[in-house]
């Protein structure tokens, strides 16, 4: 049975704050951070934006690209910043796009890979015949503690993918995952900001899982890196995916289109998904795409995707990812803090 993506959409909020501006506030060396992280600026949600609104915008773009809300039998939204601890974002999205009520829904959490976990669930739900099509969304208004290194990259954005069996714009040929119990980065219930293990998030975290899942995928698919036209790796900064690609044997050219982090930061659950949507925006029929996400805690989901002829019919029907990224309005740290709710106001 062929499963794949029948529609997709991304959304990135318009506001941007530069690494220079954040460094100025905390007395950091901006060039050091720009070089070390390979990031120059990050996206910031507006006062009235959050994970729910971003998920809705991305979902609406998928609808513009041909998804029929009445045929969506399941919606899963993955995020680290759901507006509610109890009350799903997924049903807000469903109501906003006119899906349901004959559908199932739930929210997901697995750090930055909650969205790709949702894709895998959609694949299961569709192939089991529970839903004709199913929508997976990864969206976040990521949190970074003031003055912490994460503040330079924790960004906002998301992407939605509709999974089905027919009218596919891309087939998902294989998926596999590598999952362990590795506490490299976490946020306790009720805590405002996540905490992390510093350098422990590197080799034992990101690289162990991304490289293991990717190697599993290459073996499962019987492919080598040069068989792919594009590769997307989870992007907490620009450096990690570049290094992962190099280690596995992918080239800088293969990852370039999907490497959105340098210009918009890390949208956590949305990161690999936004990277994939950027690739689908320009991919040609027959192009093969390799995707490996990473979520702290920890795990990686890998996908082997082939773009179909139908892609050219939908790419232009909604705003493209890099067009969202380039549509930038720069703000200062005070405005950023206001938008992100970092200024203490009496409740």
């Amino acid at each position, binding site marked *: 049975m062929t499963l794949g993506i029948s529609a997709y959409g991304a959304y990135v909020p318009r506001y941007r704050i530069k690494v220079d501006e954040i460094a100025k506030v905390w007395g950091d*060396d901006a060039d050091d951070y720009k070089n070390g992280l390979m990031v120059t600026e990050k996206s910031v949600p507006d006062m009235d934006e959050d994970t729910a609104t971003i998920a809705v915008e991305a979902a609406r773009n998928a609808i513009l690209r041909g998804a029929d809300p009445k045929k969506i039998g399941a919606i899963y939204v993955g995020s680290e910043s759901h507006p509610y601890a109890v009350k799903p974002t997924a049903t807000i999205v469903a109501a906003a796009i006119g899906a349901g009520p004959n559908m199932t829904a739930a929210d997901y959490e697995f750090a930055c890979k909650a969205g790709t976990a949702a894709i895998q669930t959609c694949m299961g739900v569709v192939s089991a015949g529970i839903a004709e099509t199913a929508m997976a969304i990864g969206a976040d208004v990521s949190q970074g503690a003031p003055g912490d290194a994460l503040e330079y990259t924790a960004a906002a954005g998301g992407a939605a993918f509709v999974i089905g069996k027919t009218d596919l714009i891309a087939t998902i040929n294989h998926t596999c995952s590598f999952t362990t119990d590795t506490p490299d980065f976490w946020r306790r219930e009720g805590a405002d900001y996540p905490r992390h293990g510093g350098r422990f998030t590197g*080799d034992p975290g990101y690289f162990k899982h991304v490289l293991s899942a990717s190697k599993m995928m290459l073996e499962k698919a019987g492919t080598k890196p040069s068989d792919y036209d594009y590769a997307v790796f989870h992007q907490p900064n620009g450096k990690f995916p570049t290094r992962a690609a190099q280690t596995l044997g992918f080239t800088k050219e293969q990852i370039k289109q999907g490497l959105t982090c340098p210009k918009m930061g890390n949208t956590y659950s949305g990161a690999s998904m936004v990277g994939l949507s950027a690739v689908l925006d320009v991919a040609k029929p027959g192009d093969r795409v390799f995707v490996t996400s990473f979520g702290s805690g920890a795990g990686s989901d890998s996908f082997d995707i082939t773009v179909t002829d139908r892609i050219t019919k939908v790419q232009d029907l909604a705003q493209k990812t890099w067009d969202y990224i380039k549509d930038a309005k720069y703000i200062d740290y005070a405005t950023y803090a206001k938008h992100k709710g970092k200024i203490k106001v009496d409740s």
Partner: protein
Amino acid sequence: MRDVAIIGAGCTKFGEMWERSFRDIVVEAGAQAIGDAKLNGEEIEAMYVGNMSGGQFVSQEHIGSLIADFTGLASTFHIPATRVEAACASGGLALRNAIIAVASGYHDVVVAAGVEKMTDVETGVTVDALASAADREWEGFMGATFPALYAMVARLHMHRYGTTRDQLAQVAVKNHHNAVNNPRAQFRNEITLDTVKNSTLVADPFTLFDCSPITDGAAAVIVAPADDAKKYTDSPVYVLGSGQATDTISLHNRADFCTFGASVAAGKRAYEMAGVTPADIDLCEVHDCFTIAEILAIEDLGFFKKGQGGPATLAGETAIGGKIPINTSGGLKACGHPVGATGIKQAVECVEQLRGTAGKRQVDGAKIAMTHNVGGTGGTAVCHIFSNERRR
């Protein structure tokens, strides 16, 4: 007093060892040393372990018992095991205590080990734990961190003697170059003066590459009476001299901090006991926790006149093949600095050099080797002098 020899040595790789624990690495080093000396467990009579801060890094005290336990010597032979602490000189001090135990006739075969597992806590916690080697109340609480204290030493040395930024940087360049040939080293990459000068500012004038890293690692040597050494090994390394000294714990109470009085005193005591002078030393492992520390060390130990350490380094006189090879292991900067283990690792490097097994790092014809291990900003110093020839 009996003469003492090293009959076995072992050392783990140094680096960030996410998958290995405190007890994993110390058992590995101990087993290597015991294997090298071809000992049975029951021949070991006592153990001294250098560890700066098991408490702050892995929430573990009572290290002596822990290590005796996990090396299988506690419930079986109930050996006496003692944890020794002198901040970054813990390893050197553990070795000295083991030597004294054998020299005095109290014990015949003694393990001297050093271990530090520094990566199980966040960097900020590590830096604070290291700061406890300085005067917490009068330096720490006043805002001084370790890099800052040594940076002040560098500033004064540069002001008074004209030591340059390039001369400081060359210490790191040389040590990285040496570590290329040390399979145990944490960093085995060549660097240039520009690499050092263009890296992140830490505490003016120091950048990242002027500072030794955070490292996990363990090392161990076995000491025995010199008269018995050949029973255990064909290549014993004899302890010619040992010296230990203190100075004020804080920099601001020193008479002068372009010299570490503890290093000078410990060095003198070791030279006197060994009956040698600096000119007799073929190679020396010194305590380069920061680049300036190596420059001070080579002056304080008498290899170069005070103020000449910088020019001598830049001129290549401390390279392998130079007048006095310093830190052939890569030093603390490139080999890594698991605090409590460093002093023992320095001894292991000397053992390999004197046995002629140092591979591409070998100092040709090495006969007399020295170690210099410092705690804090010179509050403690421990020096040892070794030879592959029995001199008495």
